[in-house]
């Protein structure tokens, strides 16, 4: 379970970075376009995290079910992210990151 929550976190942060590399979403959140030097960093970091999100899924479910779960949770995280971005508020963004981040931590604490 903790593994899957970790996957959700990686996927969510990865997608968020991919969104922040885009003019529109960066402007909506921070009032201006992303610095030109950062666009590439955001994008590459985002893709890496999205790819990494696959790893806990495969660990938990095995390769076949894990890949299905990875694709499914990427879609689910993407839809959740769209809802958060629509609010155009940095606070909502931080709150959502906190939620996704605390879930695996909580799971570890509860399990211990």
């Amino acid at each position, binding site marked *: 379970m903790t593994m899957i929550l970790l996957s959700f976190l990686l996927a969510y942060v990865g997608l968020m970075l991919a969104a922040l590399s885009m003019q529109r979403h960066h402007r909506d959140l921070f009032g201006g376009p992303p610095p030109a030097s950062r666009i590439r960093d955001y994008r590459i970091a985002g893709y890496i995290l999205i790819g990494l999100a696959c790893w806990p899924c495969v660990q938990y479910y095995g390769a076949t*079910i894990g890949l*299905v779960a990875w*694709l499914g949770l990427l*879609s689910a995280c*993407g839809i959740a*992210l769209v809802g958060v971005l629509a609010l155009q508020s940095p606070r909502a963004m931080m709150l959502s990151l906190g939620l996704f981040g605390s879930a695996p931590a909580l799971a570890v604490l509860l399990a211990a």
Partner: protein
Amino acid sequence: MKDNVGQSMAWVHSWFGLIAGWILFTVLLSGALAVAKPEIDAWTRPEQASGSAPQGEAIGRAEQHLAKVAPTAMWWFITPGPDGAPLTAGWAGAEGTGEASLDPATGETLTIRDSDGGEFFVDLHATLHLPVWGLWLVAASGLFMLIAIISGIVIHKRIFRDFFTFRPGSSAQRAWLDGHNVTGVLALPFHLMIAYTGLVSFFWVYMPAGIDVAYQGNQTAYFQESTRRVERPEDARPHALASLAAIAQSAERQFGMNMIGLINVKNPGRSDAVTTVYRSTSDRVQLHGERITYDGATGEVIEAALPATPVNIGYRTLVGLHFAQFGGGLLRSLYVGLGLAGALLVATGAVLFAVKRRDRHSLGTYEGKAYRAIERINVGMIAGPLVATAAFFWLNRLLPLDIAERHHWEIKGYFFVWAAMAVHALARPVHRGWAEQLAIFGGLSLALPLLNALTTGAWLGTYLAKGDGARAAIEGGFVAAGIVAFIIVWKIAGRGGRPHARSASALAG
């Protein structure tokens, strides 16, 4: 003639999407619910078993029950339920068929209310609860869904630039288009997979050519060979049945503890009895459990667990991807969520169709009338099934327990409520139709825990306190859906029924 590829694709997308969408909304909604069949089964049958027992013991109790009620039946079926759920013991033969739910811990017959539960939504999803042509209708709408997906990708000009874009505050048309694009694009792998695997699941109904040629039209021969079913020569002499409990325990040693999916016995009490144990499929994508076949009279293994043929594995993997019986609760909730995203995709598409054309034609013209009729049908085919679904769960608690054919009345209730909503949608102004039906749905959904508490004494709170995740998920899901419904009602009211009232100049921004 259409001017170019883009325009003709747009035409195909709008019209195929709209007409198929009226069916697809119900198909996708009931499909999402069908994935939650175990949870819906638990909620719709609140009568509890007293405890759980190891599968081998529980199966032994089912055997005693069947030996009492149907010693001469042709078939016995025993399905051990998930942990703590009742187990099902069924029989079929010349005398008819029967089924009982048993307490796995004591073997007592449980009086469980007569409800189709989640099975109704499986049936609605596959056939719309119609005769065989319903399957064809659903298959056709699945094909149209694929066509709409492909043409939708072609006409979407900025898939990547609008990947995360949703602007609920801009013009109505923009907001609906964003919602349609986002639910479509972000869950695209799921939509493609589910439409394709859904069509593949019943290929032998509408594409039987391959089987017809290879097996001279004998479909039974095809299934016999592809599933390698064991047949024994007839021998009707009486012979005691080898203990099913012992067979179950030996099968568990091979499949793993609690990994028995189904046991069936052909000709129990005869010398040619065959007992077959199927492995559960809960830990794999392919919907195929190996089986061990036993001589029912002596208990010896006739045929050990064989690996499936490659073709069968391929087919069963595609079917398994569609039926989503693998990976446990978390993966199934992803399926439910993405299935609902698919329903939302269809609903936003249908609304967008109407919003786009609403102002192009004045009321008096023929086109104006046609488009207003389409808007009303939208209400009946989208809000209608939502209300009917909530009503189904209400009827499950409200119908008297002792009426004959009770489960038929739950289903009749579903279609009656849907029909009433369709008539209501035709009679009311469009925005009122939406608001009123969504308010009814929201009210029914939010009050479901209250109804449950009044009729059975249990509700969302007690389920959560007891750690009954399955039933809590159903009620929690309805409460969440009810809240969303009221938010939409509030938005419709706020716009005074003119969702397109805001200036189109927002489009430029």
